[in-house]
């Protein structure tokens, strides 16, 4: 088990390297090695709901000190202000409950990374869309979206869905991709959504490989 984990870590580190994804983007705050060790501990394979609430609370603290996205340092594409706006929108699309919100699961990292990679063609949509989102927020509540209460943010995001459906659908798709897709792209940190759905993580099947020489499953 220990050897396997070491192998997984090496593979993930290599993948992160070739995709130029920062380690912390893949593994969240803290040492990725420790995170994986935690995963490998059978009893801790699924975080309890209580632990997730704690994670959520930590996220709240992080927001209070100015990294609401859970992302530290510079963005690849977004400005800080755009990052805050997008965080608010994504966290309405997937809010926190017993399980992390979109931003807590790294969705912002996913979208920001891809905006200079496969989503380059959407850069303009994001620039315009986020500007429109702020305009709606200021018009309704006189403040920037990130500073509103959750019910106010929900109202603004609903208005964005009504008034700018193309932009909203784009962000919705990207948010769902980041949250439910592969952790390798920066979202779905620690496969949190897969654990939420009750899927084995790491997957159990795929470890049970048939050994041709022995004629059994190893």
């Amino acid at each position, binding site marked *: 088990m220990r050897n396997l984990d070491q192998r997984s870590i090496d593979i993930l580190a290599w*993948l992160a390297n070739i995709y130029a994804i920062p380690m912390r983007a893949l593994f969240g705050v803290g040492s990725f090695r420790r995170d994986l060790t935690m995963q490998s501990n059978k009893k801790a394979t699924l975080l309890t709901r209580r632990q997730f609430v704690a994670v959520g609370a930590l996220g709240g603290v992080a927001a209070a000190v100015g990294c609401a996205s859970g992302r530290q340092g510079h963005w690849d594409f977004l400005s800080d202000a755009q990052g805050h706006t997008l965080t608010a929108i994504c966290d*309405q*699309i*997937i*809010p926190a*409950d017993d*399980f992390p919100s979109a931003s807590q699961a790294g969705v912002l990292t996913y979208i920001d990374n*891809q905006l200079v*990679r*496969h989503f380059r063609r959407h850069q303009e949509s994001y620039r315009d869309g986020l500007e429109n989102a702020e305009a709606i927020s200021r018009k309704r509540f006189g403040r920037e979206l990130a500073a509103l209460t959750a019910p106010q943010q*929900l109202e603004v995001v609903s208005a964005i869905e009504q008034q700018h459906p193309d932009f909203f659908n784009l962000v*919705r*798709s990207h*948010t*769902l*991709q980041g949250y*439910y*897709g*592969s952790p*390798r*792209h920066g979202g779905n940190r620690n496969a949190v*959504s*897969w654990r*939420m*759905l*009750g*899927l*084995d993580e790491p*997957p*159990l*099947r*795929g470890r*049970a*490989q*048939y*050994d*041709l020489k022995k*004629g059994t499953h190893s």
Partner: protein
Amino acid sequence: MKRVNAVIVGAGAGGGIVAKELATAGLSVVLLERGKWYTANDCRKDDLRNQGVTVLGCAFGPEDEGHPRVLVDAKGAAHTVVPSESGYQNVAACVGGGTLSWGAQAWRFMPQDFKMRSTYGAPAGSSLEDWPISYDDLEPFYEKAEYEIGVSGDYSGDPFHGPRKRDLPMPPLPPTKEFAILEPAARRLGLHPIHIAMARNSVPYNGRGPCMRCRWCNGFVCETDAKNGTQNTVIPVALNTGNCELRTECMAKEILTDNRGRARGVAYFDSNGNLQEQLADVVVVSASATESARLLLNSKNRLFPNGLGNRYDLVGRNLQGHQYTGATGYFDFDTYDDVGPGACIAICDYNHGTPGLPGGGMLDNEFIRLPINMVDRMPPGTPRWGLGHKQGMREWHKRTIGIHGPGQQIPTADARITLDPSARDKWGMPVVRTSGNVHPLTYEIGEVLAKRAEAWLKEAGAIHTTLSVNKRDVVSADSHQAGTCRMGDDPNGSVVNRYCQIHDVDNVFVIDSSVHVTNGGFNPALTIMAVAYYASAALVRNWKGTGFRS
């Protein structure tokens, strides 16, 4: 560059088999492939970038950059599309072609699938036609494909397929939870459920182990190499003969002809972008229904001003795929067991015999659902986003079964591929332009199939169901694309003869799904393979040493 007996363009389902058959018969072969050779070590289990979910690109080609196509919509407006977008009609670009990352359903067509016109008559406005060959002609070659590629499954409960001489070489994989739910429900409805025939090892076969039943199957390279395609079966055999050279990342530009109108080889861009010529006695085009048609159309010269084999403006016409429709059922108990490949049970009761409709399609349960595949598949009334959506994912992901099937598309001459007048790929060549649509009866077939899928789910205990009718106003040929170089006995009404030989040019063959006259109500790969074995056998039979003479 040394002249060879045969140059084959495309190392997919068709080309891989032709390479093996010709090389083992002693012909010297060059196999050109525009993509790379991926192996089991390239399995990345990436839910966002594979060949099924392409939001971050197509994992097994082509890349989005430099490979545009043009799609003309029902209103006549032209749109540039890239490979990862819907409407591109992509299969793959790699050694093995679609059979590298496929779900690996390896069906035989039914006898009626080769006799659509004589069974049903041709609906007005359609180009429905019989194949010049029959199920009986192909039966030995289906068997050869099943044994050389390696197919598991069990047809024994199916009274609809044509006679077969041998059982499949491997038993089906053990049943999943969905199988256990759906099988008795189908029987209660009087249907005939069977284990899907799959080009996937259920037991050790051909020197490779069996399926480990993971979640990352359809759209992915198999991590344990238990999924069979031409890249891990016939192509290695071809290379082992010493008679076949595989050149990857080589893009064919045109078929070269001499001043008597016979082909003398292929011009292609090598992996460095340099233009090369490979001279050969025989040229085999196996580049997929879209790209094979494009290569013929791009091979223009004084003798063939409209492209090779296109004297009667037939190359590129009758583009078709499958009309995928079905239903999703939601249950009040867990249906999901996280055991791949997921798709396992099918019925062929509705492929033929629906009153008033020409054909139908097989119905099967879907490949195992990745979470990302679930986000837009919630039961009616579930919010599209917000807490309600998140709760919906938790509630339904393990309690959902999808049943769908490849309904027959009824071809028309207007659903076609031409060359776009202005768009160019990264080599500067004119690209595929898709326009037109299949016959409207296609949609009726699809709707009937969807309702039957829904009835099956309800019988199995679904508490909610939704229909997926997928009515597009442009042809959706996609990975099951076929029909663009129709096979026929009449040189005025078809592009190739029954041995896949172009009527006009006797040393050029088209051997892939392009030659399918109709595409059956089944995944087409095993039929591509059977036709490839059949055509290769004829080619070898007629081979007269150097210089091919028909």
